[in-house]
């Protein structure tokens, strides 16, 4: 590989990483806040109690501000495959294009159209129908996530295809849709979404407690948030762990890298923290805190399971695919896995503490917890970003596991200059969007906002 080519591939990778991580800051909140807002509106529909309407409108506004960037940045993702990865696109189009097209037709159309109806339909639709439009939009967002993850999971664990004339062709739609990897990733993602939504609602409610503003109203919001957050954060720890087991059998290198496990071991201890041990020349950490047998359990489901080491896997891969380096960046993978897992545990603790305080009727007065919950809004963002870094960088050097290398998949016709320009444009644009989004979210979430601004835009005239 010439140095120039590697620069092109590197730039294309940086661009994809930047735009997709950014996109995924907004997507999970859409997935999780949608059903919570719909729950508020359902409670209003059932009880006719004004407080639920106020909460619907309050969090509905936050939902929409966030949704807009999700849509705008999602378009970039669809275009980017062809723009930066034309060789990849030709290779996988038969298989990978199908779920993307189905996503557009069956899911994205649903969420976009029905969300438009919900935003502007307050006085045009019957309350029942209006409530239905939001739930349908939520179903659209959940379907959308499924089809996108089906596509992504095929890159991690290709199924239902054959290679003909150097391109992958689909042989079984069912295999593609029921890909074990996709189903696990989907559950993991939906739970992540619900964590985003519930932690945000909890944090915003605590902000209001902190200022003593509308405490009565936001106690209801906090209650719903906690009912979601406690079981979901706990379940996510289990699901994330089981997901790891699937990865062990389908992407052994990723798991070995996420543990910086150089030698095959049985039983294997799990390293909570370590200094050093991340490169071939320095395989033994100079300092580490480990829990015996935990890695065996996490990777195989048995406290006595065997985990293959990096050295052995590297040798296997070379036998199979020829000479080359088949290890991802060990240090990044090791730490992204831990950041995700530690953040996951922290979020469970925050939720559990909140529930305990609520049960003891102390939630509105525990100022230290209000600050904690407010800061905890950042945790799901950190966890989800780390999770995607683990998933995508852990697959390297492959773009499609075992079938196509990232270094051979970029667009030959796109120069470093073009890539540089587009990367600059995206970064500049995304920074501006991010700042405006943050300012707006903060303004519409803050406790001391004049009550008149609390309302979502009424349709038509006040738009």
């Amino acid at each position, binding site marked *: 590989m010439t140095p120039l080519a590697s620069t092109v591939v590197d730039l294309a990778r940086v661009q994809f990483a930047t735009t997709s991580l950014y996109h995924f800051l907004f997507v999970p909140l859409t997935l999780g806040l949608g059903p919570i807002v719909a729950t508020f509106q359902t409670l209003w529909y059932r009880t006719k109690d004004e407080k639920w309407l106020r909460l619907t409108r309050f969090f509905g506004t936050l939902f929409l501000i966030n949704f807009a960037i999700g849509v705008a940045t999602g378009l970039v993702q669809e275009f980017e495959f062809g723009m930066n990865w034309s060789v990849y696109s030709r290779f996988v189009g*038969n298989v990978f294009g199908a779920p993307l097209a189905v996503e557009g037709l069956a899911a994205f159309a649903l969420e976009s159209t029905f969300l438009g109806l919900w935003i502007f339909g307050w006085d045009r639709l019957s309350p029942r129908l209006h409530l239905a439009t939001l739930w349908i939009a939520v179903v659209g967002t959940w379907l959308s996530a499924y089809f996108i993850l089906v596509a992504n999971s095929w890159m991690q664990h290709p199924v239902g295809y054959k290679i003909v004339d150097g391109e992958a062709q689909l042989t079984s739609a069912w295999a593609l849709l029921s890909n074990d990897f996709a189903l696990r990733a989907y559950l993991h993602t939906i739970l992540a979404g619900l964590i985003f939504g519930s932690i945000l609602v909890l944090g915003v409610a605590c902000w209001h407690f902190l200022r003593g503003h509308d405490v009565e109203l936001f106690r209801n919001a906090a209650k719903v948030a906690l009912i979601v957050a406690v079981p979901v954060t706990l379940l996510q720890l289990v699901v994330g762990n089981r997901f790891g087991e699937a990865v062990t059998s389908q992407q052994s290198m990723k798991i070995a890298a996420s543990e910086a496990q150089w030698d095959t071991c049985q039983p294997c201890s799990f390293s909570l923290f370590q200094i050093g041990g991340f490169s071939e020349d320095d395989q033994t950490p100079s300092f580490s805190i480990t829990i015996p047998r935990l890695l065996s359990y996490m990777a195989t489901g048995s406290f006595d399971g065997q985990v293959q080491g990096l050295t052995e896997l590297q040798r296997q891969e070379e036998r199979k695919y020829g000479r080359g380096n088949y290890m991802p960046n060990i240090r990044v993978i090791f730490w992204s896995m831990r950041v995700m897992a530690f953040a996951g545990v922290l979020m469970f603790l925050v939720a559990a503490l909140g529930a305990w305080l609520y049960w003891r009727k102390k939630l509105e007065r525990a100022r230290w917890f209000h600050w904690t919950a407010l800061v905890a809004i950042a945790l799901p963002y950190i966890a989800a970003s780390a999770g995607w870094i683990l998933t995508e960088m852990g697959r390297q050097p492959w773009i499609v596991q075992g079938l196509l290398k990232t270094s051979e998949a970029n667009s030959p016709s796109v120069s470093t200059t073009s890539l540089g320009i587009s990367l600059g444009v995206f970064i500049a644009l995304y920074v501006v969007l991010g700042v405006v989004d943050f300012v707006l979210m903060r303004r519409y979430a803050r406790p001391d906002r004049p009550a008149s601004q609390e309302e979502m835009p009424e349709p038509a*005239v006040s738009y």
Partner: protein
Amino acid sequence: MDLQIFWFVLIAGLWSAYFLLEGFDFGVGMLLPFLPKDERERSQMFATIGPVWDGNEVWLVIAGAATFAAFPAWYGTMFSGFYLALLLVLFFLIIRVVSFEWRDKSGSSRWRAVWMWANAAGSFGASLIWGIGLSNLLYGLPIDSNGDYSGTFWDLFSGYTVLGGVTIVLLFAFHGSTYLTVRTTGDLCARAAAAARRLSVVAALVLAGFLSWTVAVAVDRNDKDVFPPILPAALAIAAVVLALVFVFARRSGWAFVMTALATVLWVATVFTSLYPRVMVSSPDFGNSLTVDGASSAHYTLVLMTVVAAIFVPLVLLYQGWTYHVFRARVGGDEVETPPLAPASGGSG
């Protein structure tokens, strides 16, 4: 029917749906700096497209993904070849998307002006580049024997393709003005009708010129006979001329139908002129991408056909219902129009 041809036609149909629908909301966006005389009217213009623009843009996502699934080689070459042009499209679409959601989040007049201009610039820029881009598929671009684009950004600009861009800007502005005449009331509606009259003359002339040139390009550069490309081209010209007649006859409902028809027939002319190729290569004509060469295998096409047969009608159905829900004209006192679209709207 051969599935590859079916998908070529369907993708033409998806682009038509996209341009027909987003065409008018691009048009409304472009007219934002010119038509309204105050903030209230500006809000009314936003309100005519507010509930539907996102649903309209869905057709772009579907058209793009359908191209990826049904013609991976076309998708790969086109999207990497049009790299900087598509970057610009994304830029324009993104500032436009957020302008819809963010404009009303503050009462500050400067804030509102910023997002109004973002919407106008985004609508104008995206229309211009779509016009240039689609014209290039037919006009021909340097493609090497691997099917990769071998030109530069500047190769996208020629007299013909730039005229294509200008044509689409004018056509969409015209389409947007006829849309406004059926969706607004009073003074704003009268000004939209006046704008439609002015735009109709220019749009009709330029579109007629551009489509005639398109037929010539199809013959010269894509080895086509005059027939069939002349057929959709002639119908498109007829539609835009009828639109002009209806605009002056104050039959705004029919004028809108005709600008919609002209938009669809413009896409039809481009795709009819392309077939059996999907991207013409110039100067090495032999490297052109064809429907046969660029398509997915049979299994994927069958699968996608089943999916499209179920979902395209379904999406059309619920989007149609959305237009029905928001059929009332946007005006000071929210006058309800009769359930069926008015044949002769416009008070002006």
